[in-house]
C-alpha cells in the first residue's frame, strides 16, 4: 500500500509549479512543519480487507458509471440546469467515506454526486432527483447541486461557493457542546478558498478546537481559472498555517493514501478535537459543468491525469494482491452498469412532482405560531409539524462547560 510521498514530490508531480521563490521557500517550510505539528507519528489507516477493497472499487466504479449515464441523459434533455461531474475525483469521496462513522457528518458543494454515492445511498432516488421526479432524494426540488441524505449525516450540496464552510464549523461546534466524539468533514474546491467564508471558518475551527476536517479538493481549476491565476500561494494547504492548523497535501488519485491521511485526521478530530486542513490533489476529467468545453486545458494535460486514473489504480492493486481476476473486475463493471440502468428506469417511471410540492417543505409547522394569520398562505398551510425523514441526533444532548 503506498505511503505518503514527500509533499514536494506530490506537488511536483501534480502541479505545474511555478511559484515565486519567496512563496516556494515558505511553502516547503510549512509543509515540513505540518506533520511535526501533529505532535505524534502518523498511524495511517488499517489495511483494507480484501472484501472491503472490492467494495471500494465497486463504489468508485458506480460513481463513474452513474455520472457517465447522467451525462448521456442530460444530452437527451432529460436532466436540466447545471450538472457538475465528479469523474476523476472518485478516490477522495470513497477513501474518506470508507473511514467515516455512521454518526459523523459531512457537507460539500454542488459537485456532490460522488459524496452521496460513496456514503452508500441508494442511487435510484439520486437519478430520479436529477430528472426532477417526485421520488428524488430531495423530492425533485433540489436537482444535481442539492443532494441531501440527512439520516446518513449528509448535508450535501451547496450552490454558493464557500457558503457551507462556516456551517461546517457550526456542526463542529454542536459536537463539542454534546461532548461526543463525532466529526464533520467539509469538502470544497480550490476556487472556494478565496472566499471570505473560508477564512472566517478556518480561524474559529482552530481557535475553538472544533472537530472539523477541511478538505480542499484541488482539481487545479475553478471553472476556467487555474489555481495559479486565483491564489497567491499555490500550495493551498499552507493557508492552514495562518490559523495554526495542521495542514498537509495528499494524492487524491490514490485511495490508499487518502485513507492513510484521513485516518490520522479523524483520529485527531475525535481524540484531540483538533481540526485538520488537507489539500487533496486531483483532477476533474470533464468540463466544469455540461456547458463547459474545457478549452483552457491542453489535451496533454488531461491525458497526463488519465494515466493516474484512481479506479484503474485500485483495479491494478486488486489484481496484484490476487484479490480479484480480470474476470471479477469485468463482472463488477457489468453489475454496476446494470444497477445504473435500473436507476434510469426507476427515474423515468417515477411520477413528476405534483403542483402542491411547490408549497411544501418551506416552514416547520410549529405550535409557537398564530395559525389564523397564515391559513391562507400555502407555504404555511402545507408545512409539516416534523421533518420528512427523522434526523439522527444523539439521544441526549450534554453540554460541556468551556
Amino acid at each position, binding site marked *: 500500500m503506498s505511503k505518503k510521498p514527500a509533499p514536494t514530490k506530490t506537488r511536483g508531480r501534480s502541479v505545474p509549479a511555478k511559484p515565486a521563490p519567496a512563496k516556494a521557500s515558505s511553502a516547503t517550510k510549512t509543509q515540513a512543519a505540518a506533520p511535526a505539528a501533529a505532535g505524534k507519528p502518523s498511524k495511517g489507516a488499517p489495511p483494507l480487507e480484501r472484501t472491503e477493497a472490492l467494495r471500494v472499487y465497486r463504489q468508485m466504479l458506480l460513481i463513474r458509471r452513474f455520472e457517465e449515464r447522467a451525462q448521456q441523459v442530460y444530452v437527451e434533455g432529460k436532466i436540466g440546469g447545471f450538472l457538475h461531474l465528479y469523474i476523476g475525483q472518485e478516490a477522495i469521496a470513497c477513501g474518506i467515506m470508507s473511514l467515516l462513522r455512521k454518526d459523523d457528518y459531512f457537507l460539500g458543494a454542488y459537485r456532490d454526486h460522488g459524496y452521496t454515492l460513496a456514503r452508500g445511498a441508494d442511487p435510484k432516488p439520486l437519478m430520479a432527483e436529477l430528472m426532477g421526479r417526485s421520488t428524488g432524494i430531495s423530492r425533485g426540488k433540489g436537482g444535481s447541486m442539492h443532494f441531501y441524505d440527512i439520516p446518513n449525516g449528509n448535508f450535501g450540496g451547496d450552490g454558493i461557493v464557500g457558503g457551507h464552510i462556516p456551517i461546517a464549523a*457550526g456542526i463542529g461546534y454542536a459536537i463539542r457542546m454534546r461532548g461526543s466524539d463525532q466529526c464533520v468533514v467539509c469538502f470544497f474546491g480550490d476556487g472556494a478558498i478565496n472566499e471570505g467564508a473560508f477564512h472566517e471558518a478556518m480561524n*474559529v475551527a482552530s*481557535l475553538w478546537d472544533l472537530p472539523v476536517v477541511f478538505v480542499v479538493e484541488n482539481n487545479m481549476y475553478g471553472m476556467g481559472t487555474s489555481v495559479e491565476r486565483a491564489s497567491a500561494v499555490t500550495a493551498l494547504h499552507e493557508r492552514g498555517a495562518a490559523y495554526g492548523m495542521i495542514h498537509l497535501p495528499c494524492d487524491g488519485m490514490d485511495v490508499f493514501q487518502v485513507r492513510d491521511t484521513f485516518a490520522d485526521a479523524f483520529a485527531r478530530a475525535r481524540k484531540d478535537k483538533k481540526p485538520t486542513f488537507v489539500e487533496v490533489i486531483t483532477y476533474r476529467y470533464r468540463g466544469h459543468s455540461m456547458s463547459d468545453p474545457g478549452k483552457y486545458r491542453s489535451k496533454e494535460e488531461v491525458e497526463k491525469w488519465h494515466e493516474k486514473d484512481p479506479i484503474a489504480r485500485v483495479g491494478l492493486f486488486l489484481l496484484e494482491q490476487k484479490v480479484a481476476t480480470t474476470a471479477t473486475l469485468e463482472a463488477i463493471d457489468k453489475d454496476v452498469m446494470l444497477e445504473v440502468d435500473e436507476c434510469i428506469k426507476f427515474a423515468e417511471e417515477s411520477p413528476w412532482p405534483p403542483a402542491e410540492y411547490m408549497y411544501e417543505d418551506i416552514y416547520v409547522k410549529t405550535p*409557537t405560531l398564530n395559525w389564523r394569520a397564515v391559513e391562507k398562505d400555502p407555504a404555511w398551510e402545507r408545512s409539516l409539524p416534523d421533518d420528512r425523514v427523522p434526523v439522527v441526533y444523539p439521544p441526549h*444532548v*450534554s*453540554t460541556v462547560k468551556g
Partner: protein
Amino acid sequence: MAMITMREALNQAMREEMKRDPKVFLIGEEVAHYQGAYKITAGLVQEFGDWRVRDTPISEEVIAGVAVGAAWVGMRPIAEMMTFNFSMLALDIMVNHAAKYRYMSGGQIRCPMVLRGPSGAAAQVAAQHSQSLESYFAHVPGLVVIMPSTPKDAKGLLKAAIRDDNPVVFMENEVLYNLKGEVPDEDFIIPIGLSEVKRTGQHVTIVAWSRMCYQSLLAADILAREGIECEVVDPRTIRPLDEAPIFESVRKTNHCVIVEEAWPQASVGAYISDRVQRECFDYLDAPVLRVNAPDVPMPYSKVLEKLYVPQPEKIALTVKQVLA
C-alpha cells in the same frame, strides 16, 4: 406583573430558555465577557459558561454560519448581530442557507435558530450605523421576521422565537432598550404572527411596529387632544404578517397611515400599503399614506438626525392629511 425595561425582558427571555433547554446557546461579538455591547446578554456567561455563551471574532458570516450548522444538527442557537447594520455580511447565510435548505432537501432539514440584535437609528451614529433593514429579511420565503415594540412583546416573542423550529430574524431597537413596561411574572410566550391593536380608535388606522409603534402612540395622544381617535395596530411579526386585524381596522376607520423607520422604496411598509389597497379598496375614503425616513442616508449632526427620524408631530400631520 413587574415593570422592567426591554433590555431586562430580552435578557430574561434568553436566560429562561437557556435554563429550560440545554440545546439553546448564544453566540456573537462581545456577548459573553463584555456582557454584550448593549448589555442585553449581561450575566449569561457567568451562569452558562463559554460553550453556551460564546464570544466570537469579528466574523459575521461565521456567527450566522455556526448558528445554521448547529441548528441543522439539533441545537437551538441564538446568534447576535452587534447591530443589524452588519447583517449584510451574514445575509447570504440567512437567505441562501437558513431559508432554503429545508426546501432544497425536500423537507429533511430544519433550522431552529434566532438571529437577533438592535436595528434602526440610535443617537448620532450616522449613515452606516442607523439602518432599518427588515425589508431584506421580510422579502425572503423561509424566514420569520419579528420586531417587538414593548418589553412584554419582546420577552414573549423572543421566547417563542427560540422555541420555534424555523429560522427567525428578531430585530430589536436600541432606542427602546431602556423603555419600561409591565411583563408577566409567569412563564409565557406570545404567538408568532399575532398582531395587536395597541390603541383603539375609530377615525384612522395607523400600522406601525418597533420604535415607530411607540412614536405612533405618542402621535395618537397628540391627536386625541384634538378629537381625532387613532387605532394603532402593531403587527409585531413582519413575516408572516397577521393581516386580518389590519384590514378589519381599516374597514372600520376607512383611513390608513403606515409608519416605518426604513426607507420608502421596496420596503415592508410598501407591501402593507399594497395589501390594504387590495383588500380594503371599497372601504378607503383616501389613499393609504405612509410616513418613512427620508429617502436618503442618515446624517450625523443631531439637528439633521432629529429631522430624519419620523417624529410624532410628523405622524400626526400625516394623519390629518389622510383625514382631510
